[in-house]
């Protein structure tokens, strides 16, 4: 299989703080990768760079056959991004938001397509309502609708479960499974271990700006994700962490 995301020797600094340190990361087509790690490990930074919103200081990034940041426009066409903010306009209706983003992605004759997407995210009945009247869960679902309007090959999600109640989170998971089952590639950061464990096919732990370890879901025992993550944290605390600081 061919890698759809290929990152080599990625370095990103903020001032003097090096957030990503020669990070290597590769995702095969159709994989559902969960990025785990403590706050400040560089998860959000990595996603922002992959989504072309932030430029790396050094390193090579290839997504769907195009390079970043040189071929950003081509990459953007292949990417759907969901951040912890909804990226939606409160004064526009659900339908108008999708219409606007559809136009930005150069789609035409997409009225039926918008209805389909609204159906998929379960908001068809409320398509005429303003987004600011929506609950956080509904906004998040519409945000996913917005991210997949141009049928991207890769979906990047940053903490999509944050601030959602049980029902909304369940609905989100169903939606993500549906998207993944269509053969799309998904990379997601999350703190919600039980949910991630059910979704992802691969778990990568980010530590101090590098992928510290990586494990396929099929290699983990059932309900084994938390134990696996804990073992890595312990390993960092006892051995690797101290060595690294010295």
């Amino acid at each position, binding site marked *: 299989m061919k890698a759809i995301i290929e990152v080599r020797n990625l370095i990103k600094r*903020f*001032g*003097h*703080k090096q957030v990503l340190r020669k990070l290597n990361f590769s995702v095969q087509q159709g994989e559902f990768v969960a990025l785990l790690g403590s706050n400040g490990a560089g998860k959000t930074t990595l996603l922002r760079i992959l989504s072309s919103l932030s430029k790396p200081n050094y390193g090579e990034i290839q997504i769907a056959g195009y390079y970043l940041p040189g071929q950003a426009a081509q990459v953007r066409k292949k990417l759907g991004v969901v951040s912890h903010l909804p990226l939606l306009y409160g004064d526009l209706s659900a339908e108008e938001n999708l219409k606007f983003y559809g136009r930005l992605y150069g789609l035409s004759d997409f009225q039926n397509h918008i209805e389909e997407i609204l159906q998929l995210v379960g908001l068809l009945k409320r398509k005429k309502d303003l987004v600011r009247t929506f609950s956080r869960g509904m906004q998040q679902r519409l945000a996913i609708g917005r991210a997949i309007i141009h049928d991207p090959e890769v979906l990047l999600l940053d903490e999509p479960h944050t601030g959602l109640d049980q029902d909304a989170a369940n609905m989100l998971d169903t939606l993500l499974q549906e998207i993944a089952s269509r053969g799309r590639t998904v990379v997601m950061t999350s703190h919600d271990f039980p949910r991630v464990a059910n979704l992802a096919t691969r778990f990568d732990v980010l530590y101090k700006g590098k992928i510290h370890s990586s494990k396929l879901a099929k290699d983990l025992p059932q309900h084994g994700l938390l134990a696996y993550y804990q073992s890595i944290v312990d390993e960092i605390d006892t051995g690797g962490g101290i060595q690294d*600081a010295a």
Partner: protein
Amino acid sequence: MKKPTALKILDIVTLITLLGATAMVFFYAPIERVMGAVQKVFYFHVAAGWVGMLSFLFAAIAGVLYLVKKTKIWDLVGVAAVEIGIIFIFINIVTGSIWARPIWNTWWTWDPRLTTATIMELVYIAYLMLRQGIDDPERRSRFGAVYAIIGFLSVPLTFFSIRIFRTIHPVVIAGSDPSAVGTFDMTATMFQTMMVSIVVFSILFVDLVWHRIRLGKLANQVEELKFNIQD
């Protein structure tokens, strides 16, 4: 980081030439017939104005270079030039006021140059406030560069706009407007003193910029060391 020898030499040269220029102003240049001793403020007034303009030009050029190359040094040059420019234009405005009080009988007039100089000062104070309001260092540099370019572009346009109102400011070089109050014929010694002042202030400018860039680099090092300790 040790202070480079060239900088030490430049410090000394600056000090000596500055003293020399001051001596020239007081002992070499003659006392102007109509205005008297107060006219002597003119030499440093013009020199400070010149260096101030030069600083802001440097800041704008450094801004362009920063946006193109994205290297930290151009940001340091930009900040250095703006800070020094603000000081020199301030000196320029204050000395201008001292000169204006006996000659135009007022501390302040809404004359194009005076007004433009003050607006220019405000533009670059806004520049410093913009930088202060941004926490991310990379973004701070980027926005500073953009604003330095726009500010420098706007200043001559402001001058040009106000210029269309009649001016009472003496047009010192190639003076053609006979109605301007405070115009005087420059003697050869006056002209020499003015040129020397301008050159000396330019040396002072280079010296200060050098010091300020060095200070910026040292501040960066301190930041870096702090981060290393935290890690």
